[in-house]
């Protein structure tokens, strides 16, 4: 109530209204997606259907699972996103630690290489990456020179290995490890701990925000990735959910009720993860921006 809050001014009310309207605009497409996924095909086709379904058709979700192997798509996406997350956190944190904390020859050069790698557009790399996968020696029927078979195409290797470690994660970890006090490291060294144990036992527990940030960002980009899985997979059993959705669109016209059910399912895990890890997500994006 306006009376109970002394600081209500017209400007503040206008601000609330503006923000509420903007939020509405941002959320409406998601609401529309869910509502459409619960309509019957007849109602979707009708020109006079309202926003709300006249009959809530929850069966669409069951039918969508029958019409396309969504369970397989979702499982594949999960396997890939989890693998990427684990590998990136592990490998990039080690590299970040080494670059921040160990003085060795060429460490500066290596660091600048990672920074340079950050700036290379996906599209400059993606074609040769595809060729490396295609001509991977001694894989998928290829001989030693990568000829004869299909290499890593249509395999878990192609889906997981090339995108596993990101220069961005290496960079972010390095920044976090740099901020730790020297005393910690020196005390551990005096206790006779080896370098790897200092990294694993002493320093890494101190950079939990970096671990969460990298884990969330990696999972997000892996789950949302489209082009790479589209390029390297052919068979349905290896399709990821984003590619599965786009394939679904072209099969004898578009079944909007299935498609929106599928899209809702593909969106849900990220929304849930975002809502649970919101604090870290927001912090992570902000830190990633300003470090």
């Amino acid at each position, binding site marked *: 109530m306006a009376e109970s809050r002394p600081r209500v001014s017209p400007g503040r009310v206008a*601000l609330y209204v503006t923000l509420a309207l903007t939020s509405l605009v941002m959320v409406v497409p998601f609401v529309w997606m869910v509502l459409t996924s619960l309509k019957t095909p007849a109602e979707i086709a009708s020109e006079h259907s309202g926003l709300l379904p006249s009959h809530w058709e929850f069966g669409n979700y069951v039918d969508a699972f029958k019409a396309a192997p969504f369970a397989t798509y979702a499982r594949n996406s999960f396997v890939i996103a989890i693998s990427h997350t684990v590998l990136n956190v592990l490998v990039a944190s080690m590299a970040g630690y080494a670059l921040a904390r160990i003085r060795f020859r060429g460490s500066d050069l290596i660091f600048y290489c990672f920074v340079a790698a950050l700036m290379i557009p996906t599209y*400059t790399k993606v074609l040769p990456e595809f060729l490396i996968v295609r001509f991977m020696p001694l894989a998928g029927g290829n001989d030693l020179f990568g000829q004869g078979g299909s290499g890593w195409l249509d395999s878990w290797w192609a889906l997981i290995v090339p995108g596993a470690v990101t220069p961005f994660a290496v960079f972010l970890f390095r920044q976090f490890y740099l901020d730790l006090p020297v005393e910690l490291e020196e005390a551990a060294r005096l206790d006779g701990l080896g370098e790897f144990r200092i990294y694993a036992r002493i320093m890494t527990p101190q950079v939990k925000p970096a671990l969460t940030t990298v884990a969330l960002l990696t999972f997000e980009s892996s789950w949302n990735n489209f082009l790479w899985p589209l390029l390297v997979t052919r068979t349905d059993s290896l399709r990821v959910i984003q590619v599965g959705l786009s394939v679904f669109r072209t099969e004898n016209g578009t079944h909007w009720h299935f498609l929106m059910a599928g899209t809702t399912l593909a969106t849900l895990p990220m929304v849930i993860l975002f809502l649970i890890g919101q604090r870290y997500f927001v912090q992570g994006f902000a830190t990633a921006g300003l*470090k």
Partner: protein
Amino acid sequence: MVAPALLHAALWIGLPVVAAVFLAFTSYDVLSAPKFVGLDNFRDMFGDAVFRKSILNTVVYTFFTVPFGMALGLLLALGLNAGLRARGVFRTAIFLPQVTATVAIALVWLWIYNPRNGLFTTLLSIFGVESPAWLASTTWAMPSVILVGIWQGIGMKMLIYLAALQNLPKELYEAASVDGASKVRQFFSLTLPLLKPATFFVLITSMITAFQSFDQIYILTDGGPANSTTMMTYEIYKSAFREFRVGYACAQSLVLFVLLMAFTLVNRRMMGGTRGHG
């Protein structure tokens, strides 16, 4: 301990970049060995009206999504920084599209733009306005794609601005208030200059993202109608994976890279060489 990451980067970033540069000067269809053709690819490219169109489209798309998105993002960040209740709810709503896959978002918008009974058509018909076939019209397809781009990207821009605003030194504002500077004056003489590093960061990252837009084009328009929404990335994809002209596609991707670098350098000059700290 840096070895695994370095090996990975060497194989999946270093080697591909070297290969891309090499292949750009060859004619290569994956089946037979690459053949050196000198600058032919580059000559073909600039003789190709569709590729020229795609460069123009990419620039237009970037020009509209980036500055407009940044202005909106900054305004929202300023609003959210005013110490409101429930700002967490607003922030969450505005940021939500950012964590959602572009493919999923594009599919939903495809349905919203549906000319028969999509959300837009339905809304406009309430006001008695007949809507065009958004994505099938050469006039409206690009603005429609741009709208989706702005809508999806706003959250990230807002968030970085919000983080930067929260780090601004409060004493300066107190001093300015004591000196009698108005809120508007404070914004232009204090906030904007102090936000320069954040602005530079948002500008560069948004531009890189906009220049590389692909998923939304693939889903929404397939580059059409009549190439009105095709982008450089989409042309690269077409050359490589539909026409199997890998050398040509590599040359196109080099042009994309050079353009991105040039834009970044120009911006840096214009912003007076500001960098984010660290």
